[in-house]
């Protein structure tokens, strides 16, 4: 599938709050859109609409030119690699079983799954021999986050949704994983949406940056244009550099 994503006049209301206010965005194949915004600006909400965890109260969210309401959600979700903000590893599964989840749901043969799991743990910097049989509670927060990333990548999804996946990492590992993310994107041309509240990360990873403020799209720009933006919210973010 050639992935294009689109938010078309999307509003989202919950508990009397307008969390997303008339959001219009288009993401073309192979791009990385960074959703930047302060806490509570609606980033997670927007992301959850792309794999049908939430549906718009008004407007449409389209994946491959088809509204999420018309998708077979199980199929859609299995074709998307999603790192949720709280990581959400299964506490009763080993690290190996956690990473193997989507390939197993998709019915891959066991030897292919095993090879894939080891490859991924290597990629995120977790020695497979040491980590495969551990349980999530035996890992540090940053290690769990990396397992979350490995799990999202496991079934070779075309589309990646990352919700602050590197939040709990030390700056060195963080840059390492950002590099891997860039390499992965350039090599496999994966379309991705990356949520962060860190401008530095946004400038580094995004081909485009969408700045959300109280559910509204304030700025949509390439990193080069973004640093020149003059809006107050953009300036506020840029001043943290």
């Amino acid at each position: 599938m050639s992935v294009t994503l689109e938010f078309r006049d999307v509003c989202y209301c919950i508990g009397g709050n307008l969390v997303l206010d008339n959001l219009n965005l288009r993401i073309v194949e192979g791009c990385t859109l960074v959703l930047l915004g302060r806490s509570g600006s609606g980033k997670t909400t927007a992301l959850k609409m792309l794999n049908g965890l939430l549906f718009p109260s008004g407007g449409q969210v389209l994946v491959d030119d088809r509204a999420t309401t018309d998708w077979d959600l199980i199929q859609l979700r299995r074709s998307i690699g999603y790192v949720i903000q709280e990581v959400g590893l299964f506490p009763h599964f080993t690290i190996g079983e956690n990473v193997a989840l989507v390939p197993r749901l998709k019915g891959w043969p066991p030897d292919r799954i095993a090879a894939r799991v080891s490859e991924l743990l290597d990629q995120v910097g977790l020695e497979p021999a040491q980590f495969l049989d551990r349980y999530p509670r035996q890992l540090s927060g940053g290690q769990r986050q990396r397992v979350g990333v490995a799990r999202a990548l496991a079934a070779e999804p075309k589309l990646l949704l990352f919700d602050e996946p590197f939040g709990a990492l030390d700056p060195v590992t963080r840059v390492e994983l950002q590099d891997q993310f860039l390499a992965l994107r350039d090599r496999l041309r994966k379309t991705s949406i990356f949520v962060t509240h860190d401008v530095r990360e946004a400038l580094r990873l995004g081909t485009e940056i969408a700045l959300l403020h109280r559910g509204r799209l304030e700025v949509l720009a390439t990193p080069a244009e973004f640093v020149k933006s003059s809006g107050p919210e953009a300036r506020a973010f840029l001043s943290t550099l």
Partner: protein
Amino acid sequence: MIPPYLLQEMAQLTGEHVVLVLVSMAIAVAAGFPLGVLLTRRAALRTPLLGFANVMQTIPSLALFGFLIPIPFIGGIGKRTAIVALVLYALLPILRNTLAGILGVDSAVRESAIAMGMTGRQLLWQVELPLAAPTILAGVRIATVTTIGTATIAAAIGGGGLGVFIFRGIASVDTTQILAGAIPAALLALLSDGGFSWIERRVSVS
């Protein structure tokens, strides 16, 4: 020591008691567990069903056995009525703990399971139930231990079991008879409690 004339009857009544408890618990689990799962999916049913089970628990057991006697089909004198009453008592802890165990699963875990593309059934069997198992088991444990005790009252309506000794002992002011019923019942309760705690330890390795 135990008078020999009691031994044979003790063995027989203990057997009856165990059967009474096993049958009641089997039915209570077979009904309570799926109902508990249903309640996690249908919030609207929670108040009426839990309310019903709650009310059942508050009826004194002797009174409940009495109420059931005149009811056709499920009532009357004998084992069947006793089992109906025991099931009604055991329902609440099983129902409540199944519900609490599943609702207690970390919402981030549930959300990631859904986001990974698990079907409702896969979510239930591979994620929610394994994580809720210790809580559900604790409910079955409480229900079983209580049922072992309550089942002694079944003798009042001809249900048999160790209560036969106790009621006979009370009627004839014979402490030996009372103890012949009470001690095996207490031992059964301790034994099953120990058995469950062993299973719980095995289940909650993760």
